[in-house]
């Protein structure tokens, strides 16, 4: 029998494929090869500063999922946003401190999409240079300060 993490991921995948969320697309081929690595494409929502752009998120799950949060980062073209570092790391509390097993891939994608939608200016975080030069490859190793809940 597969481990609980895999069973959960299969359920989430099935749910997202049968009831797709607007602007969120799953790379089925990649997931079929390895259920623990997902690539999700996010479309910038209409009437926002990211309209017409698409971005790719990489999700990695360990065997403790969903009790442990997935590692989530942007790959390829990184959106310019005040909470997204140029190496793809995302400063979002539900990805570390506020993660709960009741959240899901869909919920994370929705949060990130709405985080993008609410931005009014395209700018990098103020500490982008120093952070990207010195941080760990794993964004979960960074202790984030969530200064601003409005964006």
């Amino acid at each position, binding site marked *: 029998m597969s481990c*609980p993490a895999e069973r959960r991921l299969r359920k*989430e995948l099935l749910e997202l494929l049968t009831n797709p969320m607007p602007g969120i697309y799953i790379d089925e081929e990649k997931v079929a090869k390895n259920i623990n690595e997902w690539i999700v494409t996010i479309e910038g929502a209409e009437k926002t500063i990211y309209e017409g752009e698409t971005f790719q998120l990489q999700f990695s799950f360990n065997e*403790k999922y969903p*009790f442990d949060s997935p590692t989530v980062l942007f790959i390829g073209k990184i959106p310019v946003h005040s909470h997204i570092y140029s190496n793809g790391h995302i400063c979002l509390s539900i990805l570390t401190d506020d993660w709960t097993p009741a959240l899901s891939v869909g919920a994370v994608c929705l949060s990130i999409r709405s985080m993008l939608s609410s931005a009014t200016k395209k700018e990098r975080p103020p500490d982008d240079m120093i952070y990207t030069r010195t*941080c760990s490859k794993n964004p979960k*190793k960074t202790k984030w300060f969530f200064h601003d809940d409005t964006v």
Partner: protein
Amino acid sequence: MSFIINFIRAVLDAMLELFSFGRKGISNKLPIFVKTNTGKQISLNLDPEWNISNVKRLVAPSLGISPDEVKIIFAGKELEDCTRISECDLGTQSVLHAVKSRSRSEIETKSKKCLETLFDDENVGDVPSKPLSSTLVDLQLKGEERRDSESNIKAKAHFFVHCPECKKLCRGKLRVRCNICKGGCFTVHRDPECWDDVLVPKKIQGHCESKEIACMSDEENGLPFAEFYFKCAEHGSGGEKDYAAPLTLIKMNLKKVPCLACGDISDPVLVFPCVAGHTSCLDCFKLYCISRLQERQFISHREFGYTLACPVNCENSFIQEIHHFKLLEKDYYDRYQQFGAEEFVLQSGGVLCPQPNCGMGILVDENCNRVHCQNGCNFVFCKICKQGYHIGDCLPESAISNNMSVSEFSVNPSRVAGARWDEASKIAIQVTTKPCPKCRTATERAGGCMHMACTRAGCNFEWCWICQTEWTRDCMAAHWFG
């Protein structure tokens, strides 16, 4: 010739049939004990198809009274004559109690009762009724749910226990005894309706007939209280001292709620004590406990002990009954107990012996920095820096490793042979870790930023890897990432 052979075969078949029938009859019998308040114990083999009046007829001669005068009491209820044995939730070697009825009028009501089988609310304690297992409503359901589901749940109330003998989750059964004499010959005045009725002492009163003189309490009406306890229903009864801890959060998944983690619908499930009632299957519950245990994220709760809250971080959702953690495999449960004990020592202001493979918990005098690991390895150390005991201020970290071998030698010569290996790992720990400035838990920084958060649940102190003091905005500005 063939006629004779056929005849012999027929006779043989008939004998075989008789023999197997006889065996079947025996295996159907339920061996039980009947206890009287005069101290006698009778062992009986009951046929599940019999009813209570059969039992009375069997028991009456040994009590020296007529069968109508016998009262049969089991699990807090006096059983009525027409109740079938199979309805009573009796297990092998269960104990029934038989006593003499007090008055003639009681006998009259009893015989009338059996014909009417009406439920007389005013007088439940004194008149015979259905056994507790069939009158008891499911404690896991709340008032409304009960009404909704009454029609489709004909099954008995469900309890789950952790059985120390079977060493696993088992179906449980509820039993009642007197809170004064602990005797089982006790009838309750009303059925328990919720977990509190069962788990909180002194909620329901009753009559005790375990002894010839009824037990009396200090209450106004002088009646003793019912004391409820649980037994495992999956092994034969081991007598009156065979208890099992009730696992109140484990429920039958009557509502078919999917697990919050894996999404499967399983049965039974664990429902966390939060307002939302977040539900988890038992496998995911174990996974949750193990992942929190490995990160040492259990919380030492003042009332409940070393426990966890709902994984969705709901308010007031700590698991009160820590026997639920007995569901973990032995290795993990042992670790749970060890961490729990360590956390208790630390929270009571004690220290843990820093010697490798010792870790003895020591409660210390607040004003004294010299700690002696008296019942453990005999190491004498400083309460503040956890190094060998010294007079004066603690040495800076770098100087300690040189000093260490000397002090260790003088403290415990018998450890010298093992000292090299321990010393090697000690140096490794010193090179790769720094102690949390608040609780001294050795912390390893495996990449990431300089902002550390103590991994010990209950400490969670936020500190700076470079300054080794509390994390401040200045640290963030000067050396967040080194």
